[in-house]
């Protein structure tokens, strides 16, 4: 591959990183803490490519002037050859570029939930299980809701009205509200599920919803893989949040 092509590929790839950074689409792929790193990486890639392009143009000019003076400009060519033996694999860098600019893959959703292990993977975490805030309706992350139902035996959630945000999935005859949690990128996504009872919204799969209701006390057990039940009192469909994953 020619140096020029390599440089263009680098500019495209760096541009793709900057594009998802500034459009906020990066939240579909990685957790939000990576933003400064993504911007830095994209800028450096473009910088390295532009620097090389400028150098090449200068060198070509110098070589051309050298020609006028009677030299054959051999130096410039040799320089070019020593760097242009990179392998065919460099072409692959085009794939993420095209994926980002042309396809822009969506955030992970129901497919991952249904193919993952049928369990809520929570960890006991002492500091998370503090007092619930007061108020009539408490917005809770799915992570906290599921963790509390699995680990908190004192029943702090019982008879409290909470609000959950997630997307709908169905398995067998059950409807679930689900959300994915990531710690670094979408490759390590793990699903969190809550079985719905009561006024289950009749909306299509993958529709994002805000649900208000109460937990069915002691509904999460080892037998049902720590998936709690939730009595829905009211539901509204919402747009996919900017931050599709919990962390």
């Amino acid at each position, binding site marked *: *591959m*020619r140096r*020029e*092509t*390599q*440089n*263009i*590929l*680098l500019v495209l*790839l760096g541009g793709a990183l900057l594009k998802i950074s500034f459009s906020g689409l990066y939240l*579909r*792929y*990685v957790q939000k803490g*990576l933003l400064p790193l*993504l911007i*830095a*990486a994209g800028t*450096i*890639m473009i910088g*390295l*490519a532009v620097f*090389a392009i400028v150098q090449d143009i200068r060198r070509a000019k110098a070589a051309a002037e050298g020609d006028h003076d009677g030299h054959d400009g051999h130096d410039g*060519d040799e320089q070019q*050859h020593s*760097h*242009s*033996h990179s*392998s*065919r*694999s*460099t072409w*692959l*860098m*085009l*794939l*993420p570029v095209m*994926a*980002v600019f*042309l*396809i822009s*893959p*969506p*955030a*992970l959703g*129901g*497919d*991952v939930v249904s*193919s*993952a*292990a049928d*369990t809520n*993977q*929570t*960890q006991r975490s002492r500091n998370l299980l503090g007092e619930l805030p007061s108020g009539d309706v408490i917005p809770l992350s799915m992570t906290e809701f599921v963790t509390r139902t699995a680990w908190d035996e004192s029943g702090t959630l019982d008879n409290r009205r909470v609000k959950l945000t997630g997307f709908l999935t169905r398995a067998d005859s059950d409807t679930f509200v689900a959300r994915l949690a990531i*710690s*670094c*990128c*979408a*490759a*390590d996504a793990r699903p969190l599920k809550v079985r719905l009872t009561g006024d289950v919204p009749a909306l299509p799969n993958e529709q994002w919803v805000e649900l208000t209701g109460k937990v069915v006390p002691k509904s999460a057990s080892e037998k049902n893989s720590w998936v709690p039940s939730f009595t829905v009192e009211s539901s509204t469909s919402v747009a996919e949040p900017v931050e599709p994953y919990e962390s």
Partner: protein
Amino acid sequence: MTITGEIRSSKRRSGPPRLKITSLEVLCGILVLALLFQSRLVDLLDVPKLRTASTVFVAICVQAMPFLVLGVLISGAIAAFVPASALRRLLPSKTALAVPVAGVAGVALPGCECASVPVARRLMQQGVAPAVALTFLLAAPAVNPIVLVSTAVAFNDTPMMVVARFVGSLLTAMVMGWLWVRFGKMEWIAERALARLGDHSGQNKWAVFAESARHDLVDAGGFLVLGGLFAAAFKTFVPVAWMQTLGGQIVLGVLVMAFLAVILALCSEADAFVAVAFSALPLLPRLVFLVVGPAVDVKLIALQAGAFGKSFAFRFAPATFVVAILCAVVTGVVLL
């Protein structure tokens, strides 16, 4: 993809101008075609499995790129600013003694595995013994402070896990270094890996820095993408959930978790959060997952094949896989 461009463009451009197809024209052609058929392409991928795979693929590439960039910057800096003689003075002259030094030096590179491959290759080019550079390559992604802290956060109930991970990974790296001293052969490493970039004396050091970094980035970027493709395919099409249920037995669990570590290709800064979620498993298989992951995974094998050549990667990766499992099991039995 066609490589006509590569072959043609290496000829000297001389004689009368005629229409030539170089990689540049191929690139433009591909881009135009992709733009024309964009909607067709999107429709084609509108299958849940493929959508998931493409998201995971982009996620792995996006997440790894900053660390690869960090790696090539360090590699470029070594090429430009650290003379080979300085490295020789820093390391013990006896390779077997330099191996543990390199392992502990891994603490200083706060990145994941993508960053350490270009750095290790640059160390070799600067005359550091391959065994020493390879120990650094294996140790750096697993024992640096960021990884240890994230492991401690994930396993906040079992702090011994952090110690076990540190010891297990360091042991793996050093054993591999010593094995290379004893059995390694230089001819396994591709010649281009050790060829130094032309003589830069006389050139501006910053220009050398930028050119080395750019060269490494172009070299490794494609292989990183290849690794991302494999990992996305495995992640989407291998029934991970089903495999977890096999993990109940301790021996089977160790093997399954080692295998998962290879195919999932998680960043070493995130794998602890995934390991902690395998709550049905005992600690030992999860430790194996944490020790194998940063040392061998499909993304890393692709990067190694790119940096050091196929015949190196296909010997080194399986050997590391076995050594990492053994070291993790020994460490786990003693410490957990």
